[in-house]
């Protein structure tokens, strides 16, 4: 399974491309070639698959969510990425890229992280592979997500504070790129979502394609034909991982953005809904920007969705109508996350909670079969949830 039919010269429709400085061009040429070769190499595939099984704990279940279904009035199944090692889908990509980097002879891994989930996943993959790892993280995010900083350090990673701009994910990404520009030869940059210059969006999607592939297998075994695939959209990796094997099929693809305090509040991360085409982090995509083309700060209660861009593949799929999108606000996401915890016994990541909230408010006839990508666990979000459920504690 590859996305190649969609790709033309590094573009996905009008979006994508490689808006990168010359100092990195060779890296991208090498990366594209190395990924294509590896992806077709049965040895690489079997090593990757074995790791997904034995280290990551795949396949993850496709679980009937009975109480959730009842509440929505439609059949809902959860794809349990929260059960993957380190607690989210992120590890599928991290382990894949680290394997690839090793194959390419790279000796140092860098990554950016927002909430720390991708940082932890990458640090984990690097610990496993015995490769040094440097994770860039906004200084502000390091304060807010201290436990994940500790986890990365215990895993042997160096965590570097990004002190520019808003000191969050966007700036950590800039810092990682800068470091890579300064150390292009021995270093591989593990981007954490389906964003950035080609081939990253495609490669990250492929590494997450296992989510959709397992979903297909489980559906076949259960004799189910999904009508809707629903996922939250940060950069878009968990969504695309689920959608990938279904792109050509008759099934509705639904991506849920973070509305923040409201899509029109000025404090939102609903990039597809409120953004416009532009160039960020090396790709042409939909971005939140002002009239001067300066990137605006995104806002979401969920650090993993708090990004002013979106994967260029998603921008393309949304522009063609293949991907349906909607936005869910902070408060609704929190409430949906709490409800899922109380009624299903699953504490979902706040990112995931956005997608959950949408299934509660969507208009269902009752005949649909809805698969929701439960992209991660919410242990990291305990404080936000606790504060909401007992505001006076």
């Amino acid at each position, binding site marked *: 399974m590859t996305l190649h039919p969609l790709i033309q010269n590094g573009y996905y429709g009008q979006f994508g491309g490689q808006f990168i400085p*010359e100092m990195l061009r*060779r890296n991208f040429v090498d990366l594209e070639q190395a990924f294509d070769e590896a992806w077709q190499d049965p040895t690489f595939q079997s090593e990757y698959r074995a790791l997904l099984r034995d280290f990551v704990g795949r396949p993850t279940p496709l679980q009937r969510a009975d109480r959730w279904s009842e509440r929505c009035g439609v059949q809902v199944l959860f794809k349990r990425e929260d059960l993957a090692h380190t607690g989210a889908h992120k590890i599928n990509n991290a382990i894949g890229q680290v394997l690839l980097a090793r194959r390419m002879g790279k000796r140092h891994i860098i990554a950016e992280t927002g909430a720390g989930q991708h940082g932890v996943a990458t640090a984990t993959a690097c610990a496993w592979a015995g490769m040094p790892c440097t994770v860039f993280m906004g200084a502000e995010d390091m304060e807010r997500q201290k436990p994940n900083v500790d986890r990365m350090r215990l895993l042997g990673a160096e965590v570097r504070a990004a002190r520019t701009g808003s000191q969050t994910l966007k700036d950590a990404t800039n810092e990682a790129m*800068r470091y890579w520009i300064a150390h292009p030869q021995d270093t591989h940059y593990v981007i954490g979502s389906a964003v950035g210059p080609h081939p990253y969006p495609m490669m990250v999607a492929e590494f997450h394609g296992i989510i959709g592939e397992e979903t297909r297998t489980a559906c076949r075994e259960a004799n189910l034909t999904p009508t809707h695939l629903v996922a939250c959209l940060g950069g878009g990796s968990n969504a695309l991982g689920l959608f990938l094997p279904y792109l050509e099929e008759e099934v509705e693809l639904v991506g849920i953005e973070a509305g923040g305090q409201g899509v029109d509040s000025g404090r939102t991360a609903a990039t597809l809904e409120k953004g416009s085409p532009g160039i960020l982090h090396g790709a042409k995509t939909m971005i939140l920007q002002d009239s001067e083309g300066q*990137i605006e700060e995104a806002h979401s209660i969920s650090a993993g969705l708090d990004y002013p861009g979106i994967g260029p593949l998603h921008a393309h799929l949304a522009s063609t109508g293949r991907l349906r999108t909607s936005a869910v606000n902070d408060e609704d996401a929190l409430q949906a996350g709490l409800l899922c915890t109380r009624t299903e016994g699953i504490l979902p990541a706040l990112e995931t909670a956005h997608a959950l909230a949408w299934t509660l408010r969507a208009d269902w006839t009752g005949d649909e079969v809805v698969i929701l990508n439960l992209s991660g666990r919410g242990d990291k979000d305990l404080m936000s949830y606790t504060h909401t459920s007992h505001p006076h504690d």
Partner: protein
Amino acid sequence: MIDVQPFRASDNGVHLSIFLTAGYPDLETCGAVLDILATHPAVAFVELGMPFSDPLADGPTIQRASEVALAQGTTLDDVFALASRFRSACAKPLMLMGYCNPVYRRGVETFAAEAQSAGATGLILPDLPYESHHRDFKPGLEAAGLSMAFLVSPTSTPDSVSEAFDTSSAFVYGVANVGLTGDAQSMDRNAFFSELQHHREQCPLVAGFGLSTPADVASLAGLADGAIIGSAFLRAIAHAEGDPAHPDATVQRALDFLAPFLPPS
């Protein structure tokens, strides 16, 4: 066809070029410094940085300068006004340097027309790929008579090097360092620039990234047509964090920085 002559060095000479972020340390002081660059005999041409929120190819000094400029509300219109002010004071080439998105957002044609009428000579957009240049940028820029400078770096493939010299219409920007602007990491600069010599006839070659002293500039004699100093200049004109800028003091620091680059009289 745009004139590359102003960028070409005579014999073993090396043109000095200064990079300055528009709106840094503030709009007024920046204008005063530009006035100095316009008239200073050591300065052959100037890059005026268009501040961007996410300058991922810049080192900490230029990054910080962008942040300061944006925080004070510097806009593209301000950039163009500064360019006009420069142009009204001299005929030296003026390159606008920045990132694709603000240009793309303004619309390439609109941008090009405005830049041209402000007196800009050309553009440097480190994140612009060739294919997008050819498709989206080149027509508008050429129509406005603006030139382009593309980058080559020690990691560039031979194909990329050829493409840079083929496509650049002002000069080729040779990255004198594996690393970011202002990054002090050493490399074998001589070897890299030596290999580029056979392209110089096609298009002038200007070195940048990591250069700061007259000795750095002099060391490029015979290897490049020019040398761009950015971070070191910005550091020189910086005032203490938190203090208000004193245009006169800043101008004096700029003059002090430039003095050693004058040929011994």
